C-alpha cells in the first residue's frame, strides 16, 4: 500500500499552498516548532536525568514529573501542530527524504512510551520504581526523543 496519495493530498491542500505562498509563514511556524522543542526537551531532560539518578536527586520523581509534565505537554502540542503545518507545505519532500521516516518512527515510539510507561512509572514512589527500571526508562526516553531531533536535522542533509 503506497502512502504517496496521502502525501500528495497533503501537499496539494489549500493550507499547504497558503504556507508556501507566504513570505513569512514557514519561518514563523518553524519558530514555534523550535521553541516547542526547547520546552519539550528541557522538561524531559530534567525528569529523565532524575530517573537516571542525576540532577535533582533530592526530589521524588513523582513530584518532579507532576511539575514538569505540563511543560512537556505544551512543548509537544506546539511541536505537533507546527509540525503538521510544516509537513503539509513540503509533504512530497518528506516522502522522498530518507531521514523523514526515521524521524516519524522515533516520534511514534517516543509518544507511545511517554503516554504509557513514562506516565505510569513517573507517578510511582521512588522505591517502587527501582534503580534498574528508572535508568532503563530514563535512557530510553532520552534516546527516542533526541532521536527525533537528530533525524529531523538529518532531513536537510540526506
Amino acid at each position, binding site marked *: 500500500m503506497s502512502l504517496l496519495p496521502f502525501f500528495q493530498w497533503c501537499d496539494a491542500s489549500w493550507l499547504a499552498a497558503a504556507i508556501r505562498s507566504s513570505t513569512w509563514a514557514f*519561518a514563523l511556524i518553524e*519558530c514555534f516548532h523550535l*521553541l516547542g522543542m526547547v520546552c519539550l526537551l528541557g522538561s524531559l*531532560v530534567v525528569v529523565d536525568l532524575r530517573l537516571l539518578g542525576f*540532577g535533582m536527586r533530592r526530589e521524588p520523581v513523582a*513530584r518532579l514529573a507532576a*511539575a*514538569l509534565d505540563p511543560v512537556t505537554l505544551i512543548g509537544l502540542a506546539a511541536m505537533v501542530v507546527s509540525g503538521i503545518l510544516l509537513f503539509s507545505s513540503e509533504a512530497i519532500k518528506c516522502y522522498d527524504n530518507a531521514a523523514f521516516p526515521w524521524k516519524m518512527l522515533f516520534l511514534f515510539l517516543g509518544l507511545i512510551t511517554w503516554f504509557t510507561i513514562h506516565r505510569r512509572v513517573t507517578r510511582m514512589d521512588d522505591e517502587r520504581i527501582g534503580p534498574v527500571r528508572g535508568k532503563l526508562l530514563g535512557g530510553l526516553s532520552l534516546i527516542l526523543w533526541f532521536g527525533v531531533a537528530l533525524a529531523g*536535522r538529518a532531513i536537510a542533509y540526506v
Partner: protein
Amino acid sequence: MSLLPIFEWIQDSSVGTSIRQSILVFPIIETAHVVGLSVSVGLILITDLRLIGAILKSERPSGVMRELRGWMLAGFALMFSSGALLFWAEAAKCYKSPAFRFKMIFLLLAGLNALLFETTLGRTVGAWDDLPVLPQRARMAGWVSLICWSGVVVFGRWTAYGLN
C-alpha cells in the same frame, strides 16, 4: 571602518573552508549545536520558570539552579564550541546577516542578565529563596532570561537561512 575583511579572512581560512565544504563534518557540528542548545536552553527554561514562580514552587530556586548547573554548563560547552566552529566556517556570512547580529545582541543581553543576577541576588539567595513569592528582581531576571534566550534561538534559526 568595515570589519568585513577580518571575517572574510576567518571564513576563507583552511579550517573554515574545510568545515564549510565538508560532507559530514558540517552536519555533525550543526547537530551538536542543536543538542547543546536543547540541553542548555531547555534547562535554563526550567530554572527561569521557577524564578518567575510558574513551576516547582515547592523547590527553592537555588536548589533547582544548583542541581541542574552541571548539565546546563555541559550543554553550554557543546553549544558554544559547535557555535564557534560554525562561525569559523561562515564568519563573513554571519557578519553580513542582520539575523545573526540580533542573535548576538540577545546572547549578550542574556549573559549580562545572568552576570547581574549572580553578582547581586545570587549572593543573597538565602534571604529570599524560600519566600512563597520571590522578589520582583528575581522574577524579572527570569523573564528577561526567557525573552533573551527565545531571541537567541529564533534569530539563530533565521541566520541559517539567509540567501547567499
